């Protein structure tokens, strides 16, 4: 029982991180309707910016974190301006965008690896202080991950509900023409979507990297967690993304309990395939998908 409770507690923390990843990915997938593979690159760049700031330039931790998120945002927006936007303007098909995005990911991640090396970089040294909750143990870093994740995700939901611009972003995915028709600033919204998505990727990356370190090739994993969470939960429902993320975290926790963490990918992608087959609109989406064609 104690083991199970401990795993559930860990799953709750992981759910916070997965939710961040899901919101960052979902923002773009929902509003732009394309599969943003380079999201994984933003994730990697943010943490390596912290590595550069802290270990090479000797910045203090808090300044480094700011630099990390900022550079992540810069990378995300730059990738949009240099690749996606021009491609979309020239009428590129989803397949072309997907491959360009894949190319961007490969390019960026290997550029990072070229500069910093392929091995894992540890960001925080020493043993994390931990707290006891009865028989359960939680580290300080886990508390931070839990709080940062859930506060950001909930806060963002409140903003989406109140702010007109954010509502516009939400409406964008459904009826792209509506946005221009309502006279909302399209360019600004696009900028905002990419920037916000990068913030979520960056924060998720940093709270993970500060805990277990970072290597250049985890970006793909982060992207896939985010993407699977969004698709499993349901693209059209914000809390569906969170639900998908939590479900993944929970099932991975259960997998650790029953088998071992080595089988995590089997769980993640098994859920993905089963969901797509039997409930393509997502587990938490009430509405059936509109009829195609």
């Amino acid at each position: 029982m104690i083991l199970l409770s401990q795993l559930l507690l860990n799953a709750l923390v992981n759910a916070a991180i997965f939710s961040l990843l899901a919101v960052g990915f979902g923002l773009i997938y929902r509003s732009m309707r394309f599969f943003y593979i380079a999201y994984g690159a933003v994730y990697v760049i943010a943490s390596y910016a912290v590595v550069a700031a802290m270990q090479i330039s000797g910045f203090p931790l808090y300044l480094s974190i700011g630099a990390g998120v900022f550079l992540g945002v810069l990378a995300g927006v730059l990738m949009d301006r240099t690749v996606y936007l021009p491609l979309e303007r020239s009428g590129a098909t989803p397949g072309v965008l997907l491959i360009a995005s894949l190319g961007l990911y490969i390019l960026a991640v290997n550029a990072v690896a070229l500069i910093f090396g392929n091995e894992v970089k540890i960001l925080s040294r020493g043993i994390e202080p931990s707290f006891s909750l009865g028989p359960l143990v939680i580290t300080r870093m886990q508390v931070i991950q839990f709080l940062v994740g859930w506060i950001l995700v909930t806060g963002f939901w409140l903003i989406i509900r109140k702010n007109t611009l954010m509502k516009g972003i939400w409406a964008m995915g459904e009826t792209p023409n509506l946005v221009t028709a309502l006279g909302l600033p399209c360019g600004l919204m696009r900028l905002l979507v990419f920037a916000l998505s990068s913030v979520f990727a960056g924060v998720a990356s940093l709270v993970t990297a500060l805990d277990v370190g970072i290597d250049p090739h985890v970006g793909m994993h982060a992207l896939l967690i985010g993407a699977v969470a969004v698709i499993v939960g349901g693209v059209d429902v914000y809390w569906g993304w969170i639900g998908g993320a939590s479900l993944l975290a929970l099932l991975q926790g259960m997998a650790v309990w029953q088998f071992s963490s080595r089988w995590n990918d089997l769980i993640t992608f098994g859920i993905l395939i089963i969901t797509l087959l039997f409930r393509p609109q997502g587990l938490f989406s009430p509405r059936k998908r509109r009829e195609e064609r």
Partner: protein
Amino acid sequence: MNYVLHLLIMIGIYLILSYGLNLVVGFGGLLSLCHAVFYGIGAYTGTLLMIKAGLPFLPAIFLGMVITGLFALIVGLPALRFRGDSFVLVTLGFQMIVFTILYNWIDLTRGPYGIPGIPRPVIAGVEVTELYQYFILVSLFLVVIVAILFVVCRSPFGLALKALRDDEMAAEGLGKSPVHLFLYAFVISGMVASLAGGLYATYVTYIDPTSFTLDESIFLLAILLVGGTGNMIGPLVGTVFMILLPEALRFLGLPDTVAPNVRQMIYGLTLITLMFLRPQGIAGEFKLR
């Protein structure tokens, strides 16, 4: 000389892989991200049939192809219900799942330890050990496969597949069954990859799951995207370019520590550039949807 032969053998194996994948990507218009799975299953079944069941090379390879074909059928049935992003995701999902199984089913695959000491092929009593012999063997298989695929692609089947790729709704309106035609293409492509896997395993005599990762699937897809799809020249151009690029970098004197990253960066940059300038690839005739 040995170095050139080695390169030619690797090009031969990758040509078999890319021509097989071309049927799905180029003629079917479906971006599959699990080709390395079939490559891997081919390598593992071929190897295990030789080592554990004691089968000779040719029967092991052919039985491996049949098993992989069945597996492709199992993957294809659910995957081919999807198009676009969802198809990419489902194939990617199978890629991750099978890799996890290859990596963790220690009893069967020895997981990360890999399987060493794979016997060399013996054909008609001759053990293929020398590089030049191997080159001949791979070339023979390549010629046969390319000839078969050439006929398949030029057949009414190939034409119908292209019609489905260009406009599925219109092709269906002419009575072309997407379910059957795509499934045939998927299974054939898996079987061809399986053959390449068997050749690869007996050539390097050691396999472990890291040769059959998602990155490998992406690499195989990239070969086609760079070279171009939908005809018989594109995969050739792509394979030669993608296999020889790292060798060219080696001649430029890049240290081994950075060479893999530089190589990957060039692949990435090539993909982006192509999407801007020539979405159908260098020698391809069909643009991605």
